[in-house]
């Protein structure tokens, strides 16, 4: 299987733990059994391309498309949940396949099918190369695993300017924790004293019954409130209530100029409109 797969970039292979213990299955079945071990469609494509046993540069894209679409179909048949990414890739590959098979029309704005295929190959090769480098990197002699620094260091000049040390990680962590707590603290704001919209609507409709001429909305505000927050809340709710009543056809609103006072008056219920409602 993948051992035979020859790649001229490097001969190092990532250990692939998800394939262990499944030796009785053929490659593709194995892939499907372990769908959850995959990290996205590129990962699947890369694994599938290995079954072609050729250099990544020489893989048959058509064959790969076929393999992938089969893979997706089998996974669906087995009712394995496939993330949207996999389906988007399947759709794109189907599109690529049709373009590869059909005679290419000359188009200046679009990449040719061969160029698209080459891009896909390049992406796969790049991911593969990064995997190999990751494995090589991890297999290097690592500090604290293979080689060691002085076990009992004596105090030396390391920080000439700072007697304090703090990592970016610690700083960001602290800020994030603070933000987290702040979020919880913000929730408590809802305990504030507010004048609800329902209260405002009730008050306004009661009072509108009494005053049928244009009256400044300010006149309807409840008096005697001292809490500034509550005054603000009252104003906001009364304003909303006036809009609400206007919408219901129970009041009319007028404003003579921008930022000018808002006038409101009660409206006799129009019987025709009432029917329409």
């Amino acid at each position, binding site marked *: 299987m993948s051992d035979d797969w020859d790649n001229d970039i490097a001969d190092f292979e990532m250990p692939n733990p998800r394939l262990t213990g499944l030796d009785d299955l053929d490659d593709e079945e194995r892939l499907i059994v372990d769908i959850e071990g995959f990290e996205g469609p590129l990962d699947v494509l890369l694994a599938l391309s290995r079954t072609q046993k050729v250099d990544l540069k020489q893989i048959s894209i058509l064959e790969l498309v076929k393999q992938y679409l089969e893979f997706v179909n089998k996974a669906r048949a087995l009712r394995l949940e496939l993330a949207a990414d996999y389906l988007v890739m399947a759709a794109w590959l189907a599109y690529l396949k049709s373009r590869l098979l059909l005679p290419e029309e000359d188009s200046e704005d679009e990449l040719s099918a061969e160029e698209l295929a080459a891009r896909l190959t390049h992406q796969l090769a790049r991911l593969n190369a990064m995997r190999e480098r990751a494995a090589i990197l991890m297999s290097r002699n690592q500090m604290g695993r293979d080689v060691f620094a002085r076990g009992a260091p004596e105090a030396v000049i390391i920080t000439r300017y700072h007697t304090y040390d703090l990592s970016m990680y610690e700083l960001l962590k602290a800020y994030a924790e*603070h933000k987290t707590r702040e979020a919880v603290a913000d929730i408590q704001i809802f305990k504030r004293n507010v004048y609800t919209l329902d209260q405002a609507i009730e008050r306004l409709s009661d009072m509108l019954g009494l005053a049928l001429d244009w009256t400044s909305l300010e006149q309807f505000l409840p008096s005697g409130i001292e809490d500034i927050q509550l005054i603000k809340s009252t104003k906001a709710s009364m304003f909303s209530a006036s809009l609400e009543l206007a919408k219901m056809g129970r009041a009319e609103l007028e404003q003579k100029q921008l930022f000018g006072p808002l006038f409101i008056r009660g409206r006799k219920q129009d019987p025709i409109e009432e029917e329409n409602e």
Partner: protein
Amino acid sequence: MNHHEQMRICEALLFASDRPLSSIALAEQLPEGSDAHAILEDLQKKYKDSGVNLVEVAGKWMFQTASDLAFLLRKEEEKERKLSRAAVETLAIIAYHQPVTRAEIEEIRGVGVSKGTIDVLMEAIWVKPVGRRRTPGRPMTYGTTEDFLVQFGLNSVKDLPGISELKAAGFLDNVNTSRLNLLSDEKPDEEQPDLPMDDDESSSEEQVIS
């Protein structure tokens, strides 16, 4: 395994150990029949004139800076101190909200900030007074220093990650997402557009403080 190889092994073990090792412990790592004592003596000789010596302390062995060079290490005894949680958080708030007054820090943190906390940050040269607010009492505002940027490898404070980036990097993992919209990066200084930098005053104070 020859004698030289055995010496190398002992040397590496003694170097990497975080405590003195007994000759018995060393012998366990050597082929049977090795003479740990002879090896230790040879190592001791090898390091006799070096900047580092192999010394025997309470029957165990360790490397130690040559006593005549102890002066090299002595001046570093102003050893690293750990910043308190409050200090780290205060630093983060100053970094993100600067220029910011002490009262504002307290409001943001929701708890009092002791004078000592800011002093510690100024001692570390990460924070400095940057001006005064044009509000009653003309409170001093704080900001971060050049040293702060150097410490954290930043080009400017604008390079600090924003909330969405912190979240993306996993720092805000345990925050309920529905609450996250409350975590905006709001500008804290909406009401004070003007930041008076009276250099004479703040710098003279800085000298007094530091």
